[in-house]
């Protein structure tokens, strides 16, 4: 597993704000591929990370309207192994002059890396490809096979405690005690994201979820139900990022990278994660991002948060200061997080109901929203969107703005 540290994210710098823009987007068929992987019809061949990557790249190239020779940078992110950048360039018929050594497997790190490289003149137009065959390779997320990453991922095996889910479960129990929340309160998050997914034809999950269905679902790590935890599916996303001054007059409105931030937890990890819910890290990284972009938090009109779990999405909203601590669930229950609410959240379904692309599908959704091409789930007149990646010990938000076409 390629585990990203904050050192993979370059220093936020106002001089780099809006200097690079996403001009091409390609995704694989998350919904159809998931159905096929479940049904395994006669002659079914599981996708590989390479086959998925090729599909996403070709779609992004077509979407951008660029020629193959316009691509002079290539970053590949195969979280669980795949071809090198050089091999991939050959396969795709590209001759990049810049291939980042490692931009981090998980989004959002690779975007600041690409934006910085473009500003430094290392390339003008870079294709970033993320691809995983997570389901087809049988990747598991707990138990003795967890033997890398942060120590909390593997150290507590003798007590039977492991998995990302277990981290979120401890947070949810603690949250319930501190704020007097009830188990069914968290259902509002899963239900809202499913409703968003049902307006996204490429979302893996399309059937309605109700509070009753949520409560009747099995526990994975109690108090977390099945629907509190993200999907596991195969897929790839390709984003083509270009120098902003070259991004005018193209097929779609450019989606400019306005700012980013990063903060990590280096000590007292479980205390910071569960007792403080990384508030310091959310606040610090968010401040960096807003300063770089020169705007305020109130200017954010659409939010995408890394929803590894329903309760983790609440951490993002409260941590960044969109709502007061303890108010996040009410924010969902009252519809303020819905499309049409005061701050639409994870409008494509997130990774809980949309597609588990480790942050890349959140950014893909931002691209569609800021292009004003999100169809039935379009956030009206949105100009500024924010993505926040947070794992168990780090936070990396990235701000995006709709540029002039």
């Amino acid at each position: 597993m390629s585990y990203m540290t904050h050192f993979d994210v370059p220093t936020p710098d106002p001089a780099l704000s809006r200097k690079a823009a996403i001009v091409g987007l390609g995704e694989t068929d998350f919904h159809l591929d998931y159905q096929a992987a479940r049904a395994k019809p006669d002659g079914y061949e599981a996708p590989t990370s390479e086959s998925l990557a090729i599909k996403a790249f070709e779609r992004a190239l077509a979407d951008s309207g660029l020629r193959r020779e316009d691509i002079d940078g290539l970053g590949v992110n195969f979280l669980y192994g795949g071809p090198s950048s050089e091999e991939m360039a050959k396969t795709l018929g590209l001759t990049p002059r810049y291939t980042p050594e490692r931009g981090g497997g998980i989004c959002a790190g690779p975007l600041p890396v690409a934006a910085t490289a473009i500003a430094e003149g290392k390339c003008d137009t870079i294709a970033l490809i993320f691809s995983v065959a997570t389901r087809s390779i049988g990747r598991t997320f707990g138990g003795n096979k967890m033997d890398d990453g942060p120590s909390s991922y593997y150290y507590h095996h003798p007590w039977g405690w492991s998995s990302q889910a277990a981290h979120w479960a401890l947070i949810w129990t603690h949250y319930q005690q501190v704020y007097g929340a009830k188990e069914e309160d968290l259902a509002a998050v899963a239900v809202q994201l499913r409703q968003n997914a049902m307006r996204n034809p490429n979302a893996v999950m399309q059937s309605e979820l109700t509070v009753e269905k949520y409560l009747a679902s099995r526990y994975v790590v109690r108090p977390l139900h099945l629907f509190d935890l993200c999907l596991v599916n195969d897929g790839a996303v390709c984003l083509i990022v270009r120098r902003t001054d070259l991004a005018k007059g193209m097929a779609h409105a450019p989606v400019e990278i306005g700012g980013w931030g990063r903060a990590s937890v280096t000590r007292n990890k479980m205390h910071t994660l569960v007792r403080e819910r990384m508030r310091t890290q959310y606040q610090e990284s968010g401040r960096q991002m807003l300063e770089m972009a020169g705007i305020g938090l109130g200017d954010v009109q659409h939010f995408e948060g890394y929803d590894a779990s329903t309760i983790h999405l609440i951490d993002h909203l409260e941590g960044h200061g969109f709502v007061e601590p303890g108010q996040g669930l009410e924010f969902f229950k009252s519809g303020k997080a819905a499309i049409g609410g005061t701050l639409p959240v994870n409008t494509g379904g997130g990774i809980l109901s949309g597609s588990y692309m480790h942050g890349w599908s959140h950014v893909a959704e931002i691209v569609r929203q800021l292009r004003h091409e999100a169809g039935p789930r379009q956030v009206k007149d949105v100009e500024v969107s924010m993505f926040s990646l947070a794992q168990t010990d780090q936070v990396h938000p990235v701000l995006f703005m709709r540029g002039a076409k």
Partner: protein
Amino acid sequence: MPQTRPDRKLGPGHDEFWAWCSKGELRLQRCKSCGGLSWPVIDACEHCGSTELEWEQMSGLGKVVSWCTFEHDYYRGVLPIPYDTIMVELAEGPIFISNPSGFGREDITFEMPVKLAFVDCVDSAGQFSLPVFAKA
């Protein structure tokens, strides 16, 4: 009969932790430079980076600040599901993930006091004493 458990992480430092457990003592690493305690086992102090560490015995007192119950069989039958885990805040400060001894999920209240106990266990490396927590 010792309980079968998933494998511990062993090696330099880790072995020393488990050796203290076998003597009935819970000892964590305290930094001689900044005085900070670290857990899990580290090579260098997580607070200041110093490698001057000493094993300090904990009082064994703490309180339960969170808990969760495993219903998914992550360990493929090694531990019978469901089973409870607790997040204990030791009196000395560090968080220690453990199991309840003599009580279960239904009995837990937020910040209830607990005290250290040991249970005989075995993993693929042999027998060991596992630190767990009973009601104080």
